[in-house]
């Protein structure tokens, strides 16, 4: 498994260019470990997402960065400062909550001005900055309304404004778009992205929506059961998942548990547990595998289907079509191989007549279109 920090970096002084760093952080609630020894470094100005299913510990991690939960073990640095004894109101971070947590006894304008009033800024400055931020989130028309009179999307924008006005070093977003309908969500995603570029702040977003994470983030950390599976750019997360979980969680894939028979710098000979013999081209960047158990991942869109035996017999297997689903732009096939594996295949619908169910079929993919992921 790749690591994003090496031991050398621990010795660096405050100005590391990392806004948030977690080192070997654990969190235990009542005997249950929610976060197991994670390491994270978020660069200044990054749009960083923590992605994972419910209960994976991503919200807990965010709350620890904000200061609402204390660390059971490990260290947390924000802009190089150790944060173990620092309460939330003294950290240079602001949070946009999943439920927005707007103060229902204050108007929109008063909500937004809250942070500045606490810092006892003078009136003129407050009015000025509130006006700027309200314009930024396009809520001028609602400045004197109360949160109860706003729609979900409007409330979310107020929550954003309220956090942004304080010019925090890091903006934390806890599933910010979760409560919105699809169209609104798409719109807000674009707005978030624009805001990030305009303001040049560090954003740390927690979400379970992989599309959102993939489209908005500079880097993603995929979490599962309290551990970080992989931290990488969206492209590499998708194309080069390093664990079976990541491969399966992001997008669709077909997985084959298997064993390495032979290794070569340019090619791996692999036999699956069901007896299929595959050739997988190893990645340049990964640690060279020589032996051991692996999981082979093949994306559905990389598999070719044909009724006749294809010319290229590498990674070619025989099977029967189970289902055909015509989805307009794509066609979805479910193929049962003779080895017993069930594959999902996705192809653009260029074919004029589709094969029916139970047709004998051949699937094939190139060695560079599949991935061997080590399992322990």
């Amino acid at each position, binding site marked *: 498994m790749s690591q994003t920090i090496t031991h050398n970096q621990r010795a660096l002084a405050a100005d590391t260019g990392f806004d948030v760093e977690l080192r070997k952080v654990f969190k235990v609630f009542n005997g249950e470990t929610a976060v197991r020894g994670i390491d994270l470094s978020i660069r200044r100005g990054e749009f960083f997402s923590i992605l994972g299913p419910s209960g994976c510990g991503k919200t807990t991690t965010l709350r620890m960065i904000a200061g609402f939960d204390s660390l059971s073990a490990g260290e947390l640095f924000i802009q190089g400062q150790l944060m173990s004894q620092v309460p939330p109101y003294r950290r240079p971070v602001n949070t946009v909550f999943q439920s927005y947590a707007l103060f229902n006894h204050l108007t929109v304008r008063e909500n937004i001005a809250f942070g500045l009033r606490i810092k006892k800024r003078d009136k003129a400055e407050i009015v000025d900055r509130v006006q700027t931020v309200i314009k930024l989130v396009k809520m001028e028309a609602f400045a004197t309304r109360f949160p*109860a*009179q706003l*729609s*979900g999307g409007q409330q979310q924008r107020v929550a954003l404004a309220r956090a942004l006005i304080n010019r925090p070093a890091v903006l934390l977003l806890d599933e910010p778009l979760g409560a919105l309908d699809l169209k609104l969500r798409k719109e807000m995603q674009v707005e978030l992205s624009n805001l990030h570029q305009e303001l040049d702040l560090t954003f740390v977003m927690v979400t379970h929506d992989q599309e959102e994470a993939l489209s908005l983030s500079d880097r993603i950390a995929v979490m599962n059961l309290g551990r970080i599976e992989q931290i990488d750019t969206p492209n590499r997360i998708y194309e080069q998942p390093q664990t079976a979980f990541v491969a399966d969680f992001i997008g669709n894939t077909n997985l084959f548990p298997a064993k390495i028979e032979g290794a070569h710098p340019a090619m791996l000979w692999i036999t699956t547990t069901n007896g299929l013999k595959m050739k997988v081209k190893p990645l340049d960047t990964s640690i060279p595998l020589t032996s051991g158990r692996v999981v082979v991942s093949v994306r559905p869109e990389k598999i070719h289907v044909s009724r006749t035996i294809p010319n290229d017999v590498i990674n070619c297997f025989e099977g029967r079509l189970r289902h055909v689903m015509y989805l307009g732009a794509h066609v979805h096939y479910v193929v049962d191989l003779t080895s017993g594996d069930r594959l999902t295949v996705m192809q653009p619908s260029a074919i004029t007549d589709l094969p029916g169910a139970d047709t004998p079929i051949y699937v094939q993919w190139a060695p560079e279109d599949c991935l061997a992921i080590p399992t322990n």
Partner: protein
Amino acid sequence: MPHLSPTVSSSAKVNRSRRAFLRAATGVVSGLTLSGCGWTLAEVRPLQASAKTANELHIYTWSSYIDDALLEEFKAQTGVTVIADTFDSNEIMLAAFQAGKGAAYSIIYPSDYAVAKMIELKLLQQLDLSRIQGLENILPRFQSSVHDPGNRYHVPISWGTTGLIYNSTKLNPPPTDWSYLWTQQRTLSRRMTLINDTREVMGATLRSLGYSYNSSNPQEIKQAYEKLVVLKPAITTFTTDAWRDQLIAGDLLIAMGYSADAMSVTLANPALKYVIPSSGTSLWSDTMVIPKTAPNPDVAYAWINYVLQPSVAAQMTERLNFASPNQSAHDQLPAPLRDNEILFPPESLLTKCEGVAPVKESITELYEKYWTQLTSS
């Protein structure tokens, strides 16, 4: 989630009809009550006599004047069941009586000054003296009361004085007169109480200034008020009998109280002593009267006769510790009780005592005005 509910209009309509209803109802009710169809305040009307009341006697009395033995013996003698209700202040008794509760009673036990009030309010019936035996036994002093000349309406049942009860072990020299409270004000500060009664307290102060207990002179009354103002900061509280526990416990050093209460307290703690102030004090008596609306006057007379029997009166004194004005009853008492100076002070001291007599309406108001100012400040 917009909260502009579409049901605003319908709830407004309900509100409007509700308001209209309330307005109408208020108008009807107010109109009826405020229309000044003049009603008489606190009118007492007699109850319809019923067969059940023939063998029952309802009396309204102080709790310290009756006990079960007394009631049972009466029942044995006459076959009549006595039901007694109690009160602890004349004002409450008057108010309850006028509120309509009084119509059930055939015998009431007001204090002497309350008799005057009840006569004034025309609540009492004149006693038919031919039906009462034993009045000759009553001490001469109580044969006629300043509140009811000739005793036409009442029969005295107990009497006593007002004085100072003090802790003899803690106060040296002991008090002999009202003026002690002022001269020893500092020692006694916040360790003394006075009776919660206008006339008693003002009267005692008047006495200590050399004036009559029942002065009608506004100047004198004013002086008494001012003297009390001087004493006020040292007074713990105005109470008629709550001082008893506190005196026994040692929280108080001295208290102004009635001789009947003094009796019970000195029995409980021999260190406590009762003194009748040398400049004089008030002499009070409690009485029995028959209200005009009495449902059962015959049994009422039977009760009066029963209580006037010397043996019964003597037993009451023995058991309940109050002084009876019945001379032959007094003679029948055992020696310690007969010679008890708290219950039966010597004649020499009694010469200085006055009864609290009624005064003119305007003077009463003056007393009340000063009293209110004293207690409200």
